[in-house]
């Protein structure tokens, strides 16, 4: 029974990490849009290239934030959560 419980914990953590990374879609679309518009702007005004590029990188980095939140959650779910949860289970049930 205990093995089954631990298995469910590990599986659910892995699934949760996968589901959390769905958030990667949003920044992907957003940054793609930003870069497309920046390319258009450079095509229209090649002399503004430097400024457009720095502003675009800045915007991309800010748009990336939600994706990075998901990444942090996924990393916690993979590396930290299983150990913690199994410990809690052992303390309450294992003895």
């Amino acid at each position, binding site marked *: 029974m205990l093995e089954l419980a631990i298995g469910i914990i590990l599986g659910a953590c892995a699934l949760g990490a996968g589901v959390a990374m769905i958030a990667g879609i949003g920044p992907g679309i957003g940054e793609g849009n930003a870069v497309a518009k920046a390319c258009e702007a450079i095509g229209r005004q090649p002399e503004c290239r430097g400024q457009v590029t720095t502003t675009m*990188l*800045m915007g991309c*980095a*800010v748009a*990336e*934030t939600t994706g*990075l*939140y998901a*990444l*942090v959650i996924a*990393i916690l779910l993979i*590396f930290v959560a299983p150990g913690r949860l199994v410990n809690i289970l052992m303390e309450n049930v294992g003895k």
Partner: protein
Amino acid sequence: MTNDKDITTDTKPEAVKPSAGFKAVDALLILMMILPTAAGIALKVLFTPQSQGIEIKGALIYFTLNTPVQPLPIGESQVNSWLVMLTVTALALFLTHGIRAGVPTKRQYAAEWIVEKCEGLIGENMGAYFKGFAPFIGAMLILSALSSLMSLTGLFPPTSDLNTVAGWAILVFILITYYKMKCGPVVYLKSFGEPVKFLAPLNIISEFATPVSMAFRHYGNILSGTVISVLVAAGLGGLSESLFGSFGQTFPILRVGIPAVLSIYFDLFSGLLQAYIFAMLTMLYVSGAFPAEEFFRRHPEGIRNAE
């Protein structure tokens, strides 16, 4: 600085032969720049336990200080950030060593270029009132950049530890709050009621979200690079074993060179970009937090000082 240059244009700079002592101090400073990295590698080699294969793990803990409150572990990220500080100090001393008005040397031009770039960045993004921020932003840029670039030497980059970056983010949060308080606590509290009173809880949350998002952005970018590089290296090792393992070859040949391509993006580009973005966001948040109109209405002499 510009005055010094003007003088040298009419009078030819006299060639000064560096004395032996000068050269010795130079060599010492260059050594001081390189030695911290070497010391870090040596420490890491001494403390890394024997392990099989590739694994992702946090920073090593070198020793634990026993403080009255709770044991304080001194890990790789602390030691490596001290090493970066030593390197930056040595670099600054080296660039300003033997600096003299009227006789510019190559390294003096380099130092002036760095200072002028920092001041230009501040003037462009923060305005004249924040002139004094140039050293702070410059220090933050080079500290963050060198910390992230440390992963090129195989050391643990301090910026892939949340604690390091969270410390910087808390510092920025304190600065933001300090500049919001410039017109007294009443104006500060009123600013939460903007634009409508009942949005105050949301404003308070977004106040705390600023340092959190700054810390997570920097940390997540550097850490994700490490994780992906390790996964690719492990995958390439497995692939080369399944491809060439039947020929009796145990050396993971595919692992040579290919992960280095990823390192260009994750270590060089991403590390430098995150340093720039962290400094840029610091400038934007701090100058955005300052209630300029209200402050200059109350302190008209401040405008003259700023200009």
